[in-house]
């Protein structure tokens, strides 16, 4: 990667500089490789594993063996498969909640920064107010409200689209969680986007667009937002581990993912019930969980430093 950069006689762009800086950051690169490994384990390798919900009461609490790499849990289910499938839910919660919050945060922050003046002041005071509300409190209430609709949603989809009932149930069970987190997580992001938009809207190419007589919406969505998209998305990698953590907290409290779905939070909760005798049931999911968060944080820090995205301070 670096060789290519040096061989290139043309000047270097923002992204090329960032890539070179990134490649030098050993922590961030290590994080990146671990993330890639986790992804391939959870989303590709998991398909070749045994069924994570296969109960086998004769073979419960089995030690690690060739059949069951991490042994089995209290119901004789394969722990390795359960960790990988649980990882799918945990990682998806992190990614989808981030996507939802990025979508809201970009539009809100961009409109606020672009409009300026009184509109901007009011929109930012709204964000300040929402930021002061305890996040977990709202997530718990919103999740409780949304999850009661998920049963109705399951019935409706099964009746109208003839989808498989179990599959639909698993899907509708986790969707409220994605939205509860995403709908409330966009606040900090919107401030970052706003700061970026405010600096970009003074640039010449925006002036040129204004001079060409383009409408405000077109300038905002076609000229300004594409330019803040990169740094924003990069910054949002730092929110992924936060959402994964919130999912685990909710699941641990019994308010998040429900069986037959599992997530890392659910597995850690289950594991802590058999602490005295089977500590690996707690340790192994905890290890996967922490390693993923660790890597995501280092990767996010590295990307942020490489692109030099400054946190918005109003």
């Amino acid at each position, binding site marked *: 990667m670096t060789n290519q950069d040096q061989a290139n006689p043309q000047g270097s762009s923002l992204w090329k500089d960032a890539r070179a800086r990134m490649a030098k950051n050993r922590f961030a690169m290590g994080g990146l490789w671990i993330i890639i490994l986790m992804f391939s384990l959870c989303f590709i390798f998991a398909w070749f594993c045994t069924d994570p919900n296969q109960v086998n009461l004769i073979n419960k609490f089995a030690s690690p063996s060739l059949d069951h790499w991490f042994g089995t849990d209290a119901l004789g289910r394969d722990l390795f498969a359960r960790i990988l499938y649980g990882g799918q839910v945990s990682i998806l919660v992190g990614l989808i909640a981030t996507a939802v919050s990025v979508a809201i945060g970009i539009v809100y922050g961009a409109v606020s920064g672009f409009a300026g003046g009184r509109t901007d002041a009011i929109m930012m005071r709204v964000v300040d107010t929402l930021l002061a509300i305890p996040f977990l409190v709202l997530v718990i209430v919103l999740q409780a409200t949304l999850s009661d609709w998920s049963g109705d949603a399951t019935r409706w989809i099964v009746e109208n689209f003839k989808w498989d009932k179990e599959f639909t149930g698993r899907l509708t069970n986790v969707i409220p969680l994605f939205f509860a987190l995403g709908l409330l997580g966009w606040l900090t992001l919107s401030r970052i986007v706003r700061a970026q938009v405010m600096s970009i809207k003074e640039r010449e190419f925006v002036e040129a667009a204004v001079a060409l007589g383009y409408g405000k919406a077109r300038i905002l969505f076609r000229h300004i937002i594409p330019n803040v998209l990169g740094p924003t998305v990069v910054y949002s990698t730092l929110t992924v581990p936060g959402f994964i953590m919130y999912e685990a*907290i909710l699941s641990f409290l019994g308010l998040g993912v429900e069986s037959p779905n599992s997530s890392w939070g659910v597995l850690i909760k289950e594991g802590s019930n058999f602490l005295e005798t089977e500590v690996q049931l707690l340790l192994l999911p905890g290890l996967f969980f922490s390693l993923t968060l660790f890597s995501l944080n280092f990767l996010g820090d590295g990307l942020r430093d490489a692109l030099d995205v400054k946190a918005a301070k109003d």
Partner: protein
Amino acid sequence: MLRFLIGRVLQGFLVLFALYTITFFLAKAMPGEPFTSEKNISAETKANIRKLYGLDKPIWEQYIVYPKNIITEGSFGISTSKGRPVIDIIAQSFPNSLMLGLCALGFAIGIGVPIGILSAVRKNSWIDWSCMAVAMIGICIPSFTIGPLLQIYVAAHIPGLKVAGWGNWEDILLPAFTLGLVSAAYLARLTRGGILEVLSQDFVRTAHAKGVSPTQVILKHTLRGGLLPAVAYLGPAFAALISGSFIVETIFQVPGMGQHFVNAATTRDEFLLLGLSLFFGLLIVVMNLLADLLTGLLDPRMRQSGGTD
């Protein structure tokens, strides 16, 4: 300063009102009945119970009555699942949560700030690397993994420490440590960053040039400015400790507010939910305000610009 204070207090009320509005309508939107445990009761009885709690009135009236009762009577309503005034439940469980939160904050400051200072002073040495790695681990390992591990490997082996329970003073140590660890890690990172920024400034170089000893430079010239980010974080940290306490209270069976909150959400107990949310919100607003005031005391620049924002 006074203008700043009044502005922040007004904003605090606005925050609480927004929190109330959102929680109220979400609680109303939660399907299900609050009185499901009382089975086989006639529709008439049920209607009477609803009337008793004022749930039969139009929704807009209920929306106004609740804050009115708080202001005029100091009443947060009566819990529909416990049948007791919400204020009693809060008064009984809050001291436990507060003790836990304060001790955790003590652990967080006592561990986090010295580690942050140490790794800033020894920047890019192995001490710095290992301190920051440990801090990152502290952020990434959830309390519900550390808590049970402490129970089995520490509490079970040290006489006097109980695995779970509440009553003696030493029962608070493990839960507070578990709870404070994440904040300690954040504080360490913030302290390190804050001090490094101050160390790079001209007046620090001047102090070195004047022959001030390195220890004095840190203690007298750097610490005050360098701790600002950490102090500003104390408000959010307290919020994190409170929301984190849901978990830790469950693990160590501390009779605090966390369980009531989770129960309120699962049993559709809207008055308890509203009362606890508002109480949490009030605590966090007050803590944020205190953190801001403390920042103002430490940093004269903030005092002038703080009022207008």
